């Protein structure tokens, strides 16, 4: 008897507390109705960024401070060490920052969850941004957020090793055959012809060059198990078998840039973030960047970007959009380019960037034929698994890897409907 009474009391107490807390939370914790907008007087905005380093932090702080001074508002910049986790927590806790970086792999999740304020229709000159990037950050046909910058992949070549192998600038590969031949020539001693990381963010470019990609162009069906994709992975595997292509971890490097800098790689496939890293870590290494060699279906590369998200639950949306407009202006994008080497996402600014930085020509030109990243809600796990499978490309068949990608992705697409 006493036991059952105690149990009853405990259950009742638990239930009461549960009701109280969840009751509270539905009143204030998670309010799904539109937030009250404050539009008069100086506003205090919080900006959350995932920074690539001190240079980026300083540049963003400087730019937001300049805007704050110009408009009389106040901006605090928060640095996120794990932005997915911190934003997820902030959304669930109903206290998101007003403006934040949105990674393209999380974009669809946030847009589907209704956390992003779609301000694309308020940007009068939205057409100045690269159309591929605008597509990347559109959800249900509406431009949700503006791309912050852009990055494409190119083939970075160590020119010293290139000359030592008896090659000249005329030999820079423009086709897969030449790439394979050059890589074989460059592979000797501790040097591997081509070193890259085992992920679709690099090898995917070859899939594009072969005429394939993970999904169709409007991301409604999987096209992973196409013959073109298989051809691309077969090509990678054939180079691997000859020893002229290795993954970065096989040569004790974290990524292609490190392998290039440590002279373990004569060539690597990397984006324009490479220039900043080489300047900082390996200033004495001479290298040049050429467009990725064309495959059977022509040229191909991948484009990456983050966008400036504005929280649907922000109480300062008007000011936040104004801040984004300032940060994505041609002048400011070029300033960011000077500070930490990113390429502008506006086509007009990109032209001036190309003039100013002729070394980045290959990357800049890539924008025209680049494939945008996959932005499907809940797709992260599928792509992570694809990357994991690519690690063991040496010992598994491309058909098997692509088949499981096709199956896994199909399941996510099927569930989404």
């Amino acid at each position, binding site marked *: 008897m006493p036991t059952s009474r105690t149990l009853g*009391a*405990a259950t009742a*107490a*638990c239930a009461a*507390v*549960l009701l109280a*807390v*969840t009751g509270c*939370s*539905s009143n204030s*914790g*998670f*309010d*799904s109705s539109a937030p009250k907008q404050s539009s008069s007087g100086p506003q205090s905005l919080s900006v959350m960024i995932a920074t690539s380093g001190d240079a980026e932090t300083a540049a963003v702080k400087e730019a937001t401070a300049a805007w704050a001074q110009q408009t009389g508002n106040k901006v605090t910049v928060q640095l996120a060490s*794990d932005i*997915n*986790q911190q934003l*997820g927590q902030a*959304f*669930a806790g109903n206290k998101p920052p007003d403006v934040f970086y949105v990674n393209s792999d*999380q974009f669809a*999740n*946030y847009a*589907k*969850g*209704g*956390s992003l304020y779609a301000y694309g229709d308020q940007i009068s000159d939205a057409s100045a941004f690269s159309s591929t990037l605008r597509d990347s950050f559109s959800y249900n046909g509406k431009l949700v957020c503006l791309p912050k910058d852009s990055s494409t992949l190119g083939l970075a070549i160590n020119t010293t090793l290139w000359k030592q192998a008896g090659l000249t600038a005329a030999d820079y590969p423009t086709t897969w055959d030449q790439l394979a031949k050059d890589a074989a020539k460059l592979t000797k001693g501790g040097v591997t012809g081509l070193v890259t990381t085992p992920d679709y963010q690099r090898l995917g470019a070859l899939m594009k060059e072969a005429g394939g990609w993970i999904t169709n162009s409007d991301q409604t069906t999987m096209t992973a198990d196409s013959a073109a994709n298989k051809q691309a992975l077969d090509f990678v595997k054939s180079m691997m078998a000859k020893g002229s292509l290795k*993954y970065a*971890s*096989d*040569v*004790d490097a974290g990524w292609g840039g490190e392998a290039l800098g440590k002279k373990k790689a004569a060539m690597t496939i990397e984006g324009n973030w490479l220039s900043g890293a080489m300047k900082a870590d390996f200033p004495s290494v001479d290298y040049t960047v050429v467009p990725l060699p064309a495959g059977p279906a022509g040229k191909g590369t991948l484009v990456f970007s983050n966008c400036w998200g504005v929280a649907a639950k922000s109480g300062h949306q008007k000011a936040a959009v104004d801040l984004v407009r300032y940060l994505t202006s041609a002048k400011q994008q070029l300033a960011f380019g000077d500070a930490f080497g990113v390429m502008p996402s506006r086509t007009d600014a990109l032209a001036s960037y190309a003039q100013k930085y002729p070394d980045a020509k290959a990357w800049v030109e890539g924008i025209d034929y680049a494939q945008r990243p996959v932005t499907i*809600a*809940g797709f*992260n*796990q*599928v792509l*992570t*698994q694809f990357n*994991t499978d690519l*690690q*063991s490309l040496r*010992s598994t068949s491309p058909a098997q890897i692509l088949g499981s990608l096709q*199956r*896994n992705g199909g*399941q996510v697409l099927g569930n989404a409907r």
Partner: protein
Amino acid sequence: MPDSALLGTPAAAGSHRPAAATRRRPVRDRIRQGAWGWLFVTPMVLVLGLFMALPILMALWVSLLHWDGQSNPFTGNVDFVGLRNYRDLIGTDGLTRTLFATSLRNTAYYVLLTVPLQTVLALGLAIAVNQRLLRGRGAARTVFYFPSVTSSIAVSTVFLFLFQGSGSVNRMLSWVGVKGPNWFADPRGVVWLVLGNLGITDRDHPGGALARHGVLGLSWADWFSGPSVAMCTLILLSVWTTSGTFMLIFLAALQGIPRTLEEAAALDGVNRRQLLRHVTLPALRPVLFLVLTLGLIATWQVFDQVYVMGKGAPGNTTLTPAYLSYSSGFDNADFGHGAAIAFLLLAIILPLAGLQRWVLRERGTKRTRKGARARG
């Protein structure tokens, strides 16, 4: 346990009060006593309820939802999916199930190797530093305890450097003519690696026929692959970091063993091994249970080393349920699956702890109970 018997004594005495007293103020007395009792435990009940029971119930609710973490899961308009998250994890063929099975496989090997190793090492260290004749005992204790007070993130980072392909460990191995693997980039399971090197199985197609069939979306060849080379370094790391803490627990227990016991054993003419087997270990049984239980729970929940050292790489062989739960939630915006993984993990840990308690139960119960009563 003798302790619970001791705790039970006062209550038992209370119920045996003289019948006359109970009859004089029967109800009021009991109510008052109960009220005071409740008053005293209220703060703890509130704290436990608010910070433990309640979040657990909330997580249980989330595990029944398809929730992206961006709305209130406690309103009417949630996507209630019942047991679908659990079905995805153990029933429906798909990526979710394969990943979960892989994480279970990895962690099972991790637990199976880490728990015994760290317990034996900790016990050995404790016995060593408990020797009265050992010089510099204090220094030795500090040294052995040091890894435990260091942040696991820092230790993991140091290990990353030590175990690089051209890192210190491989350089040391090369002195004795061994070419070490590229530890953290090596997804091969050690079972197939060893069997392959011995020429028993085919190196490129390990497992043979076992690779064609399987359970939970993972072939038998994968289940029996053993921990990968990368996972072995994780095991080494956790044994190294946790044995200090457990050494301390064993040491405290060793110092609690009455000297008279050892002296009596010495009079009986036992050697050191017999002393350990028949005197020390039985006296340490409750502590052994504690250490094994703590080890078991901690190892099934391993997260931070995985987060730092590769997030499941290479080849998902260091993926653990705790990390998978995190990445399902925060990377894949599927908190329902994440919560369901946590509860499945609970469903694994609880029976294991129960089983272990049963294995380590007090045998010869009669004598112990009599002893406890005499002490009480």
